[in-house]
């Protein structure tokens, strides 16, 4: 008879081989990554092998009930996840209610559940929400706090660190913002936990590095996906996206052209062609040993910096704000430098990673209550923070990531009476930034 146990991120089989198991020469047992637990069980059942399963520290099942009533598309998402054997990724836009789908999943499954989230702010948000819905104490594991309960919220970092101890205590894993899971440092969570049931939540799954493909193995395939357009006007606010091409100032244009001519000149002189991200990486590596390459790289970076942080954009921003004087607005940039410039010039409160936590909460609270009508921020509010509702988003600069674009759009999409949300994107005309903009809004 085979005896299955859990040991430090592995399922250990004593008494015979199991699929994905490797022989541990020292002990004579077979060890398989914990996430294969479910497949191992299925295999043993199918083959009629006698076994004793001691992998999980089983407690009594959870009796939970909430008053949540799901919308039609949320029901469909939950059913699709159930049909897939309680595994898979649900892709819904920001504001469409991903959290409630997960709460219903926890309720209906009745298994101890670990909710893995990327930020401390989300830990608190999830805990509050789960306690409100279920009326039970919810555990929290993060740096400095370690309180494990049948329903526990944990950060991605702590989930990696605590995998040995928690890997066999939860039947269900819920990954909020699951697009983080494929990151090299977090991928181990996918493998070290034995939980047979898994749900991933995200607004935009794709990663620029293509690593999201690995999610299929750890969480399951996409079981339900709905895009912003399908919900706009019904469950989300109606919205419009406008891209405005803003010319650089003559001085900026001259400097931009000069920077790019140094960059192009170098590439031509060395016969280098940049056709992919990999080519560009090679060029950056070259700049570590070749001062000319370094000069070209810095010239390019300066030119891009000018395009992204152009003075003209600040002037256009003033015009936009004047056109929508009563709208609650979020202004997004790529770099903190521009955030603080705008904050000082237009006297708008700023939120960046340097903003003290208390001040950030206070600023968001005042934005919510209407004391402040605008906030300027870089990338910290893109995700993982519950940002009060706004109706106007102005994107002054960003990455080429469609995920970032969709998340920023999501910040203004919460449904409101007669609300018409707007996203205005300012792009420096005739610069490489136009390509960045096309890339991010191509989806």
């Amino acid at each position, binding site marked *: 008879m085979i005896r299955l146990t859990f040991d430090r991120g592995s399922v250990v089989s*004593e008494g015979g081989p199991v699929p994905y198991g490797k022989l541990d020469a*020292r*002990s*004579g*047992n077979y060890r398989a990554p914990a996430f294969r637990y479910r497949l191992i069980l299925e295999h043993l059942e199918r083959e009629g092998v006698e076994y004793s399963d001691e992998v999980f520290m089983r407690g009594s099942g959870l009796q939970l009930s909430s008053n949540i009533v799901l919308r039609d598309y949320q029901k469909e998402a939950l059913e699709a996840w159930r049909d897939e054997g309680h595994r898979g990724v649900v892709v819904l836009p920001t504001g469409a209610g991903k959290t409630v789908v997960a709460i219903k999943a926890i309720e209906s499954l009745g298994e101890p559940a670990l909710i893995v989230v990327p930020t401390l702010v989300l830990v608190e948000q999830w805990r509050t929400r789960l306690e409100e819905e279920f009326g039970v104490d919810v555990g929290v594991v993060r740096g400095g706090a370690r309180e494990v309960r049948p329903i526990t919220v944990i950060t991605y970092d702590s989930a990696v660190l605590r995998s040995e101890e928690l890997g066999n205590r939860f039947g269900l894993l819920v990954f909020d913002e699951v697009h983080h899971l494929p990151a090299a440092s977090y991928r181990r969570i996918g493998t070290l936990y034995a939980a047979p049931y898994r749900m991933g939540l995200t607004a935009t799954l794709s990663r620029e590095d293509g690593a999201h493909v690995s999610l299929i193995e750890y969480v399951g395939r996409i079981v339900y996906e709905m895009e912003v357009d399908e919900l706009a006007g019904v469950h989300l606010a109606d919205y419009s996206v406008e891209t405005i091409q803003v010319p650089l100032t003559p001085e900026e244009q001259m400097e931009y052209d000069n920077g790019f001519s140094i960059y192009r000149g170098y590439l031509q002189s060395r016969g280098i062609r940049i056709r992919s991200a990999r080519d560009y990486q090679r060029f950056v590596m070259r*700049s*570590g040993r070749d*001062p*000319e390459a*370094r*000069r070209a790289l*810095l*010239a390019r970076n300066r030119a891009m910096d000018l395009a992204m942080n152009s003075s003209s954009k600040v002037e256009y921003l*003033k015009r936009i*704000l*004047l056109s929508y*004087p*009563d709208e609650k607005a979020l202004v997004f940039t790529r770099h903190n*430098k521009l955030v*603080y410039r705008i*904050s*000082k*010039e*237009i*006297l*708008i*409160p700023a939120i960046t990673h*340097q903003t*003290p936590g208390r*001040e950030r909460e*206070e600023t968001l609270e005042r934005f919510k209550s*209407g*004391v*402040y*009508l605008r906030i300027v921020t870089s990338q910290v509010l893109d995700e993982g923070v519950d940002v009060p509702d706004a109706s106007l988003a102005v994107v002054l600069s960003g990455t080429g990531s469609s995920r970032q674009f969709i998340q920023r759009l999501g910040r203004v999409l919460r449904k409101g009476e007669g609300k018409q949300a707007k996203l205005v994107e300012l792009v420096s005309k005739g610069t490489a930034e136009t390509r960045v903009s096309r890339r991010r809004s191509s989806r």
Partner: protein
Amino acid sequence: MILPSEDIRVRRRRGVIRPVYASEDEVSLAKTLVSVFGEHVGETRGDLKEALSGCEMLGFDYRLVRGLSSVLEDRCVFGSRGVLDPSRVRRAVFEEAGRRIVASEDDRKGILGAASFRLGSSVYDLERSLYADLQDEQELQEFEQVEPMDLLKGYNFSLLVALLAHARHIELTYDGDSPELRDLCSRIGECKHSNVRGSSMLSIKLPARLSGYRASHLQDLLTVVLGMKSWSLKAEVVYPPRSKKPHTLEVRSQKGIMIKPLQPRTEPLVEASVRQAPRVRVRSKIIDLERTADRLGLTEAEVRGMVKGLSYVDLGGMLVAEGKLQEVEKALSGLSDMRFGEVRRVLRGVGVKEPVPLLEALGYVVEWNRDRDESLVYRI
């Protein structure tokens, strides 16, 4: 001053590591950087950083530019520009701005004027204080000038110290004897001294991780050595830190050597004589000397020196407080089942986190079985 690890420039070949020193050819860069720092007195750190990043385009190795800048930064005093509490200022300004839109300079002045009235300050102070808590907003208040050639020599000194900070072992040979050097060596690591026919040799074994205070003594050591007439230094260096095998670094006295410490700032922050070893108290009742030394960046001898307050029994690299040892032995003697799973459970019950090293130190052997918990534990 010790260069940041990422700015170290070296060439490694066939087991030998050589620092890439700055040479006289780079004096123009040194001049430029000195003038950039000088011109930025009264400006913000952010502006200085931007100007320095522009210097990386001058065609020199960017790590040299950054290294020289680090050396110069050590001669700077930065301070806050604000006179008011920045978070209070922000609250006042943004509340005043409220729902209004700043479309012109007049709008802006109006809001700042109203906020400064509320806070009882001037608009000038208000503006300077608004984000004075950001590092980039700090003001370069003083910069102590330096000759470009001295800067290059000072850079080379900092580069050599930075590299030696990655050494596992240093051998220093010099004419005569120097109690000062011997004293400095003993502060850096485990030091052995020998004197043969008027020539001294100091052999220093350094911990895997060099603490700040120890690195400062290394700096002092090199300063003394460079002032001597005839010397040679050989070190086993592990750089970059992830590299698997050490490389040999050799430096010796020679005429016109371009390595010299920069004169310290007029008012050194810490006098070398009052520099203290880190005050760490090792409190655990079971101390694995090697692991603790590695964790704290100290030698085993230093860890022994820090163990205070309790009477310990030395079990050969494992120090166990007398009371704890009795407790452990009593727990083990009461065991009828000497299988590892049971032994571990009992030892954990008396506060032993890692049973195997302690068992080995007590003279037990674990005969590992396929099932770890079933392994037999017996005393030799």
